[in-house]
């Protein structure tokens, strides 16, 4: 039986802007409810501080970086330590720069508007996520090593 496909989602930690909080919450939503069986969240601070398990996972499995702003810390860190990311979601592309680069946002201060932004970002992550799953799924079922193209492995 083929092992279940897993995708690592690396969120920026974004402590000093609202985009960071939204990025983080959208990523948690992937793990908590949207794709709980296939999402593995990668802790960026641990990744940066030398977390070998996080880095090894990101090398071996596809990854999506979710960045709160154009500094792209999650993308850069993943590329530096584990190789190219499969996909990047920039929160600032989905909500206005003014909001994403606005002051740091506590989860205690989330408004309905913020929640809607989290959902919007989560939808985009899901789109990228499913695209990777489909691609990997196809790779897994495509027979390898066939020279004549008929699938006979001759």
């Amino acid at each position, binding site marked *: 039986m083929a092992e279940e496909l*897993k995708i*690592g989602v690396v969120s920026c930690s974004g402590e000093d802007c609202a985009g960071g909080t939204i990025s983080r919450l959208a990523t948690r939503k992937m*793990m*908590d409810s949207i794709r*709980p*069986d296939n*999402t*593995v969240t*990668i802790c960026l601070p641990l990744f940066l501080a030398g977390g070998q*398990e*996080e880095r*090894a*996972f990101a090398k071996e499995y596809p990854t999506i970086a979710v960045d709160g702003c154009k500094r792209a810390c999650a993308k850069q860190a993943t590329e530096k330590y584990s190789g190219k990311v499969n996909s990047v979601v920039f929160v600032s592309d989905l909500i206005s720069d003014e909001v994403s680069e606005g002051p740091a946002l506590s989860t205690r201060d989330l408004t309905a508007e913020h929640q809607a932004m989290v959902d919007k970002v989560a939808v985009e992550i899901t789109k990228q996520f499913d695209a990777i799953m489909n691609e990997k799924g196809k790779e897994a079922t495509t027979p390898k090593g066939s020279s004549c193209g008929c699938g006979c492995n001759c």
Partner: protein
Amino acid sequence: MSDKYAVLPCNGLDKCAGQMTKEIALLLCEGTQNEIICPVFYRVADARYDKIAKENPLLVLDGCGTRCASKLAGEKGLKIFRKMTVTEEAQKRGVTLPTDTLRLGDEEIALCTALEDELSKEEIAAPVQVVQKVEFPAPAEYLIHKKDKFIFRVPAAGFYFSENDCWLQVIGNRARIGITDFMQQSLSDIMFFTPPPIGAELEQFDEAGNVESGKAVFELVCPVSGKVVAVNTELLTAPERINENPYEQGWVAELELSNFDEEKDFLLNTEAYMKILKKKVDEFHVNKQKS
């Protein structure tokens, strides 16, 4: 009680429970040969108390869960003979300690007297330091099971396991017990450790202490019968050692075995435990992703 004890109270000044440790220490020392160690002075000057602390059984009195006295004992490399935490004892006895005053009232004084009484009258087992020391070698090799980004280690040889995720390492008639890597990862950050009492005679599958994390309280199910001859006192102040290294620095207790030849039939070797581990990991991860 033994002839002489060194008594180390936390002497915390900002809580009632801390004030009580001083009172209990005074009661323990009045009219006896016991000596109080001043924690503040000991922190800055080893010479005054090192000899007393190392040559006599050490009683540690902590006011609260911060366990400053236990931590100080750990920093000084002292073996704790017996410890008591006032807030825990108060809770056990249904006593609510005041939070609006630091002065000890009648109820607090009565509790101090009761705790001193308990410490004084208790039949004390032989001090840990006279028990013959046995070297337990670190595992030469670990087998690994990976699931997503999680890696679970199991010593390749020389260990036994139980289905309750406890391990056992046997050297002659002595054994060390602890909890497995899978269990410590399941629990996440361990913050509290309650050891089994030294001298306790445990049957196989009796409770042998417990550990507590933010997620759960885990009672160690003793894999074999025996008498507890040592506990890992470092875990009293640094229970996270279990997370860091569950099979080596994170050992929980040592036992003198009483019936190992018969009981080992109920234990698992590495290969058998790995099978159970893989199943548990798969089940756990289905639940973890949903939690």
